[in-house]
């Protein structure tokens, strides 16, 4: 049963991390390179999950995505399916909670790339997208990678919002943090210890890697 939780966590976090990478880079690029009305408001909105209690974010998620939610109702009427109580819901919770970390780190990293490099690329005939992929991103690699690893760790430890939107279903949505909570609350010390150890080990490695990468040489 310990392995079930571990497997589920890895499944959820893998999907979440891929989504966070793409969506996070998108928003980071948008915020770093464009100016538009309401930009700082968007930034503040995207930062909310970092600051609000996870149960509040969970509340918003279920309000939006539940069977009668603002968005969830359409999906349910159309397909009879809802993300609530599914591992997909757990992925969504993980993405929402960890995305701000990715966006913040990536945006700062992208902004720190000397714009002259990008302009040089344009004068050599390369489009904005190609420039982003071949010049900006490689030069922003450290911050982006650090952000991604941090998001991974955050997604792995996500609990409050997940509980609300995915429920605690062993084998289906019981990720490691949920399993640990249950083990502790039900007095199953051995299970709690093993799970906590695994989770801590992974998180430690993640944070260690993040720090190492952030400290490695700058290109300048």
């Amino acid at each position: 049963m310990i392995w079930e939780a571990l497997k589920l966590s890895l499944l959820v976090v893998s999907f979440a991390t891929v989504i966070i990478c793409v969506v996070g880079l998108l928003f980071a690029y948008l915020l770093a390179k464009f100016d538009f009305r309401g930009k700082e408001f968007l930034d503040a909105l995207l930062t909310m999950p970092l600051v609000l209690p996870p149960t509040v974010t969970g509340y918003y998620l279920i309000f939006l995505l539940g069977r009668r939610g603002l968005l969830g109702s359409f999906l349910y009427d159309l397909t009879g399916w809802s993300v609530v109580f599914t591992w997909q819901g757990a992925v969504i919770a993980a993405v929402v909670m960890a995305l701000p970390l990715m966006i913040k780190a990536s945006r700062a990293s992208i902004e720190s790339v000397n714009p002259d490099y990008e302009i040089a690329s344009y004068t050599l005939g390369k489009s904005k997208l190609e420039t982003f992929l071949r010049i900006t991103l490689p030069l922003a690699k450290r911050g982006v990678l650090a952000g991604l690893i941090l998001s991974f760790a955050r997604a792995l430890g996500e609990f409050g919002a997940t509980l609300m939107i995915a429920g605690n279903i062993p084998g289906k949505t019981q990720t490691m943090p949920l399993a640990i909570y249950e083990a502790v609350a039900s007095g199953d010390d051995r299970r709690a210890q093993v799970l906590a150890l695994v989770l801590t080990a992974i998180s430690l490695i993640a944070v260690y890697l993040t720090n190492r990468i952030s400290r490695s040489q700058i290109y300048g």
Partner: protein
Amino acid sequence: MRLAKVFPKLLLLLCFVAVCGGCGTDSGPTGGITVSAAASLKDAFNEIGVLYKTKTGTRVNFNFAASGVLQRQIETGAPIDIFASAGENQMNDLATEGLIDEDSRRNFAGNELVLVVPRDSKASLTRFNDLTRSEFAKIAIGNPKTVPAGQYTEQVFDKLGLKDAVQPKLVFAEDVRQVLDWVERGDADAGVVYATDARIAGEKIRVVATASEDSHTPILYPVAVVKNSRQKQAAQQFVEVVMSAEGQAILQKYGFTAAAGK
């Protein structure tokens, strides 16, 4: 410049407030007692807390959470004076570990398990056995491992022979309020909660069945003074207020039944 002058005064003011905050405004001998109570007791106990303060002048600090969590807190030495749990298991465990005053223990209330559905649910559900039907895809109950209500629910399912049919559809919540929330929203097709919780949810849900008394061990709410309490006298008074006629009336107002037996 102005900030530099204001800052030390601000700091002093903050310390003053902090110290004063520590002193209660109550006239009791201490800063109040701390009562850990199951989440399902919240509304009733808040009122009992007012009753207690009126009678003794001592304030009550409440700590509401799942009984399992509260039990763990006491086991790891949290400074609690009273424990009121929604089920005997947690209290029994603590008794075995010698963490409560056996003499002070009382069963102060009972409850019933009810089956609820969203208010506008079109499903026809009149008995627990109907849960096996396919129109009930998601059934929310308290986590049997950590929530007493969930344990009783499992007993009911076992007694009625529903366990295998119902198991794949179950969604566990860590407290009964969450079960209610899911049913209210319609994300769960049905849920099993205490009668007292269903009463609070009111209009948003419909109670469709009550589990018969013989389908589960009696739902008893025990209360006891924690052994390491530093305010035994004040804590004992709290138990007495809970057991008093006025205390019992408050409990029944919120849908609790009288405790069966002791």
